[in-house]
């Protein structure tokens, strides 16, 4: 009986698409949940596969994990949005050829009654200081994601050490965090794409937007072959080049406009960090 079952299992398993192609035809892209959740990669990845003949495995995780995976050579190319962390990995020789691809922006949102009185504040840092001074509830991702990294950098610049009880760490993705902030009538920082996607479910309103530190810049980086065995450097570079190609940038420029009434990302191929 066991043998029959094993044989059946083997037959069933062999019917599965194994995807274990030669390494040169597969590219592993490690990226953040926000690019996946926005639906952008569902458009760009098939485009790249058609053009290049590569098959892409997109691993969407928090930015911290996406970069850590790439640094171990478990991916070939990475699309992330944590500039300071990215530069560190480049400096460590784990990844190279960091190039800016696009940006969207973060907004600080909060309950309509605005207990910390930050509505209309131009400076994100000033707004955070007020939230801390008023000890108003604030929900943090707490997951080392790109959004969380940006939030932590802002607190540091604001000279505030956020702490419980008013500072709540959700440990979850942006969507779930918005739900918690909404439920607790708390402030939080979110990327605009997720906020637009959740606009029907979340009653929190936009408090601060448009400040330079709230720009969310995405870059693409290629994994160095020395970072681990079996890194597909050629494929990784092909995907990075694709992200910066004029046709791709044109797609990014209009992506999301039909669904949300405004595009979600601004393409910035060729620009440098200093330009912002």
């Amino acid at each position, binding site marked *: 009986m*066991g043998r029959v079952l094993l044989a059946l299992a083997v037959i069933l398993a062999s019917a599965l698409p194994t*995807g274990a192609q030669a390494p040169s035809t597969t590219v592993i892209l490690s990226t953040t949940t926000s690019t996946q959740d926005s639906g952008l990669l569902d458009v760009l990845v098939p485009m790249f596969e058609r053009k290049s003949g590569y098959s892409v495995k997109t*691993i969407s995780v928090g930015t911290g994990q996406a970069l850590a995976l790439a640094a171990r050579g*478990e991916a070939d190319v990475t699309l992330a949005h944590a500039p300071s962390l990215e530069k560190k990995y480049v400096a460590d020789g784990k990844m190279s050829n960091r190039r800016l691809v696009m940006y969207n922006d973060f907004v600080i949102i909060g309950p309509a009654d605005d207990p910390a009185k930050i509505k209309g504040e131009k400076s994100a840092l000033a707004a955070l200081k007020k939230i801390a001074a008023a000890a108003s509830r604030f929900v943090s991702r707490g997951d080392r994601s790109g959004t969380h990294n940006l939030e932590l950098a802002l607190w540091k610049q604001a000279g505030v050490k956020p702490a419980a009880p008013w500072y709540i760490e959700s440990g979850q*993705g942006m969507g779930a965090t918005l739900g918690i902030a909404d439920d607790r009538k708390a402030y939080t920082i979110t990327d605009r794409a*997720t906020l637009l996607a*959740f606009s029907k479910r979340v009653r929190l309103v936009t408090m601060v937007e448009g400040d330079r530190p709230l720009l969310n810049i995405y870059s693409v980086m290629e994994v160095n072959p020395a970072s681990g*065995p079996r890194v597909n450097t050629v494929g990784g570079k092909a995907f990075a080049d694709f992200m910066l190609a004029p046709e791709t940038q044109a797609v990014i420029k209009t992506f999301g406009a039909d669904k949300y009434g405004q595009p979600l990302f601004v393409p910035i191929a060729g620009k440098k960090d200093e330009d912002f």
Partner: protein
Amino acid sequence: MDLVVAGVRHAIALLLAGDAEVWSILLLSLQVSGAATLLALGLGIPAGAVLALARFPGRTLLVSTVNTGMGLPPVVVGLFVTLLLWRSGPLGEWEILYTPAAIVIAQAVIATPIVTGITLAAVQNVPAPFRLQLLGLGASRRQMVWVVVREARLPMLAAVMAGFGGIISEIGASMMVGGNIKGQTRTLTTAMVLETGKGNFDVAIALSILLLTLVFLVNWLLTVVQQRRPS
């Protein structure tokens, strides 16, 4: 409440429209968890029978280990299978991380102790005098084991149900070793997490209904077989 109603409507619409992506996700979940269940049966039934019938030093320890394994957290299995299958891991040269095969392995690891444990209990429940009688009638030891396992086959269907039900609704391991890649390793549960993250609650509800229906149908089928004749 209107969200739940919308979700149910959406589920029916998705199924009726024969949405290709939903069907391929459904089919993949069924294939992966089906293959993993069969693997677990192939490993767990002999292991459970041996543990039930043989007496050897350290047996109690082994049985305790199996019983602990019945509650093995999928995310722990996912983590260790991922580490094994990493390019830099010991099985890296297989290059099967983020493929359905990797999910089959992880789910089989989760289901095997469940099958082993239930088989163990089922076989042990076959009265000992029956075994002695078989031997007395001139059966070889191998024949005796075969008859006893056959005798326990109906309670052992519970092992199939528990194993399959456990892994098709499992999320932690599938997400980690599969990567939730669209069109390749997206299963019902990982798709649900993704759609919830995107704020598409109606799609997530539709997928939950599909999953529950699928598990129900499989269990119903097995129950019909199990209850057909009094054991």
